[in-house]
């Protein structure tokens, strides 16, 4: 598993956000967890506002961010953001929240089929350590473009995981693709 290393400029994302236990279900009427629910909200909203949002969209992928906050390590609570990159925040519907990502270097790991459902972050952590890299911001990003066919067609799917990285001090240089 060798990632691609790229540098990107600042990015703006627009979408929906949740903070808490992302795997909490409410039983009885709703069996899906918070991640499933936020994706449902996002897809329904995107479909409703597609005419406007498709004009503001920067690229053709949807993004899922997991942001670590103060209680993430102690409680397993995350911020989950689902949305899309945008060229501008003007004219965005008020229902959406904005995420502003700074210019960053990313290691991009591509996962195929069932590996999408595996504990890919343990593998990523091992690779980074061996490569002398470390995560530099408290979030990671899963990017879903036309290569992702849905969880019911996961065997035909691919997904990219973006990890913001920096070099551990005293461990040489890397040469990202600009």
């Amino acid at each position, binding site marked *: 598993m060798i990632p691609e290393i790229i540098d990107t400029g600042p990015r703006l994302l627009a979408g929906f956000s949740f903070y808490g236990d992302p795997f909490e279900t409410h039983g009885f009427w709703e069996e899906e967890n918070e991640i499933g629910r936020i994706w449902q909200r996002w897809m329904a909203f995107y479909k409703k506002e597609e005419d406007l949002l498709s004009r503001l969209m920067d690229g053709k992928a949807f993004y899922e961010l997991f942001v670590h906050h103060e209680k993430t*390590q102690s409680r*397993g609570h995350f911020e989950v953001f689902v949305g899309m990159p945008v060229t501008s925040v003007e004219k965005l519907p008020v229902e959406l929240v904005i995420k502003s990502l700074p210019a960053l270097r990313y290691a991009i790991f591509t996962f195929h089929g069932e590996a999408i459902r595996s504990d*890919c*972050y*343990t593998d990523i*952590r091992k690779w980074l350590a061996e490569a002398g890299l470390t995560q530099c911001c408290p979030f990671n990003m899963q990017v879903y473009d036309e290569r992702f066919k849905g969880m019911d067609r996961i065997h035909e799917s691919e997904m990219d995981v973006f990890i913001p990285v920096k070099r551990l001090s005293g461990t040489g240089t890397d040469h990202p693709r600009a």
Partner: protein
Amino acid sequence: MDAMTRALDFVADNLQRPIQVADMAGKAAYSLYYFCRMFHRIVHHAPYDYLIRRRLSAAATALTASRRKIIDIAYDLQFQNPETFSRAFRRMFALQPSEWRKNPLNPVFYLMPSLTREHLIHRNSPAGNRPEVLHRETWEISGWTVPAESSITDIEKIWHATHSESHTDPVRCVVLWDMPGHPEGMGCLAGWPDFRNDQKTSGWIRKQIPGGTYAVFPYIGSFAGRHLARDYALHTWLPKSGCRLARPMIIERYHTRPVSGPGKDIRMNLEIPLAG
């Protein structure tokens, strides 16, 4: 399952240490994100929720087992201040710690047990754990009291001695209820529902079971393992259901004759009365 068992054992061994969910994930050798997802799926709890419930249950045990200051017990179990501890304690038990110390509730019904690999196997069995919630009218059980930890052999003797096997209704019941002051803390009656014994056998009693809403959990497994169904119903399903226990009572309905011995499974419905 092995990974989750390691995490559960880690919690059991470290309740009084400042462990975090990330430490539990480390014991399972999973990333934090994947661990949280799998813990929900296999244990049927959020990891933090399980950790807090175990700590509060350990605190409740310490409150009745010693005269130590409440604040010291709270700090031992990693609560940052008395207010946080009291709020969490009241939320779980509907009692202040001082009230629990004076009149503790029956631990079988209210304290979260330390979950084991056997619990996880039960929770992930094909039989599933989704209960049926239904309404029951008031009914009576007739039979004999037995120790709460009676073996299936002893209970079968009760059933066999008191009822002809030719009776058309095969349903047998065991009812357990909170009995403060009893040496076992629990009353237990093995018998038959709505059965009239006109022979006036010595020791024969009848107990009325109030009508109301009941959650009914199917259980297939060993007789000795039926506490796994009880633990799931009372300490995992009930807190998430939005309901509370109407009264500290469990009813076991055996729809086929339970047989004892290794490898012999029983089929039983476990029922708990609901309020709210």
